């Protein structure tokens, strides 16, 4: 099982201090062999990170092996073209370590279809040269007609090549998102808070992500439901990476949403969840008090993480 980190940013500090502490912890985690770092998009305090991609670009320059995830992305707060471009930038600076996880539609106050179309657009953008997209929420380029095929489509036939600088005032019917990512397809994940998204993701091999504030029992229920639908669709389990984010208290009490206990207790709790749900990636949501305490990172990396693998 892979193990990553995410953070509750410390609202008692300045944004610079809070963000620097998280960035420094990514550097430490990189050294301890943690697999991933996830920065959630939030807008509820002066220290909130509204641009996880910008944050992770800074992390890419400071940590050489840890995977970098812009998480909790609220599609209605961003332009879909720029979301595709953001991941590419992280991926190029990190040589293939970028990924993006999307917030549930319910958290954004939007229709789930907007989340689905945005993800579909990004996957197309990264893997296709010139294309166009016609959706209810995504239209690219802008002048794509209603008569265009639904979703993504490519030119039906070869047209004589004209260099871009000679296009003149006309705008082509198909455009390419460039540059392309370093990796073939950066991983994407989506919060499976609503049934429509859970089902959509399961049937399309989009990896599920369950956030730390979802009680563990409910998290297990959703992940089992995802796995059931994916199995029914005949999809390979290896095609997805189910992710569970939890707050963790080493040698502390647990709660409905927090895993707590000694190292052996935590090993058993996590392995039990894994057996029930098939998660392959656990993300430790670090509290503000925990951030900067590298002892706990070291303890978990030495006493818990290896025992989750086999």
């Amino acid at each position, binding site marked *: 099982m892979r193990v990553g980190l995410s953070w509750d940013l410390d609202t008692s500090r300045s*944004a610079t201090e809070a963000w620097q502490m998280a*960035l420094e912890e990514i550097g430490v985690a990189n050294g301890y062999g943690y697999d991933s770092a996830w920065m959630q998009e939030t807008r509820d305090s002066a220290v909130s*990170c509204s641009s996880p991609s910008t944050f992770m*670009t800074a992390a890419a320059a400071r940590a050489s092996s840890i995977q970098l995830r812009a998480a909790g992305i609220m599609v209605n707060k961003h332009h879909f073209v720029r979301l595709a471009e953001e991941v590419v930038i992280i991926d190029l600076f990190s040589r293939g370590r970028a990924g993006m996880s999307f917030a549930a539609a319910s958290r954004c106050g939007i229709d789930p279809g907007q989340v689905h179309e945005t993800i579909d657009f990004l996957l197309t953008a990264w893997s296709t040269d010139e294309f166009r997209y016609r959706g209810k929420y995504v239209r690219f380029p*802008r002048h794509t007609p209603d008569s265009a095929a639904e979703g993504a489509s490519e030119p039906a036939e070869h047209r004589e090549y004209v260099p*871009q600088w000679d296009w*003149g005032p006309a705008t082509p019917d198909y455009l390419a998102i460039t540059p392309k990512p370093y990796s073939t397809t950066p991983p994407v994940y989506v919060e499976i808070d609503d049934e429509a998204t859970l089902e959509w993701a399961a049937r399309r091999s989009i990896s599920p992500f369950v956030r730390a504030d979802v009680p563990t029992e409910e998290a297990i229920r959703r992940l089992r439901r995802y796995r059931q639908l994916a199995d029914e669709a005949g999809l390979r389990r290896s095609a997805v990476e189910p992710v569970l984010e939890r707050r963790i208290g080493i040698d502390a009490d647990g709660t409905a949403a927090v895993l707590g206990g000694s190292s052996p207790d935590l090993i058993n709790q996590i392995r039990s969840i894994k057996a029930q749900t098939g998660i392959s990636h656990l993300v430790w949501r670090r509290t503000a008090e925990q951030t900067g305490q590298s002892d706990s990172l070291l303890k978990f990396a030495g006493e818990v993480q290896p025992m989750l693998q086999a």
Partner: protein
Amino acid sequence: MEFWTGGGMLSRSRIAPGALANGYEAYIRDAKTAEDLGFDAYGAPEHHFMYDGFVTIPLQVLAAAAAVTNRIKLRTGAMLQPLYDPLEAAEYGAALDVISNGRAMMGLGLGYRPYEFDGFGYEKRTRGARHVEAIQIINLATRHDTFSYSGKHYQYENARIHPTPVQRPIPVWQLGGTSVQAARRAGQNGFPYWLANSSFDRTKIMVEEYRRAGREAGWPQESLMVAAQKDICIGATVKDAEEQRQFLLDNFYDEHILGYGYLVDDEGKHVYGATREHPMYQRFVSSFFCGTVDMVIEELKRYEAIGMHAVSIGGDKQLVSTKILPEFKRT
């Protein structure tokens, strides 16, 4: 006078193709070098949907430079603001400002390529008005905890951005334009103005017009800052320098300046498919300064003498740092 610079590794060159990831890695090293050599600001540009993978989100890219530097300011030039929602732009800026501990600078251009507007779904014809409103909004959003704004294109009530930036506000420069009209509009709006490539004589005229318009509009003197984008080519002889210019034109600039509708005639119309004989292209070529080190110093002294806050130059950073920067009073 400040000296700004940037790196050109963030796209794939036709004459020296290489892996983009290598270029991105080199960009980070170059940012650190620029800081060590004493430059005041390091930059990143923006274009979209380009065959050469031209860099797309400068404020995000500069976060990588922020991670390896401590002092040098991090400036966009140009960030194509009419392709952004103003709050989205402000939040990118705030994120960079936090990561860099208060070193973000937003150089905002209008954009001009039709397919970029079409790709993002924004109207090109409203870009000027939206640009002005957006700069006002970004100033408000990064200065105040909450703000309200009522414009023709954008309306906000008790809005705020996250995170709270370090700089209140983040410096914003209106970038671009080689016409007196553009300079006048910038002065009327009271925005710090970063002029696009022009000869010194033309620059002087535009600066005077900008300042006059700004004074008449009632803007305080200290807000009416000017910077100049200045391509310089330094050689042992003028001929050497001119050969460097030709190399740059042949292998980079011609495509960008002659194509895409970059050139604008005196009536304000975009010129597509221009040739090298077009007077606007000739004007661009003449905006380069080609000379020896001493000649370049003398030329840049003229900019200093008219109160230029900064010049943004390219070229050999080591040469500029050792031979040119020491000749100037640094801000």
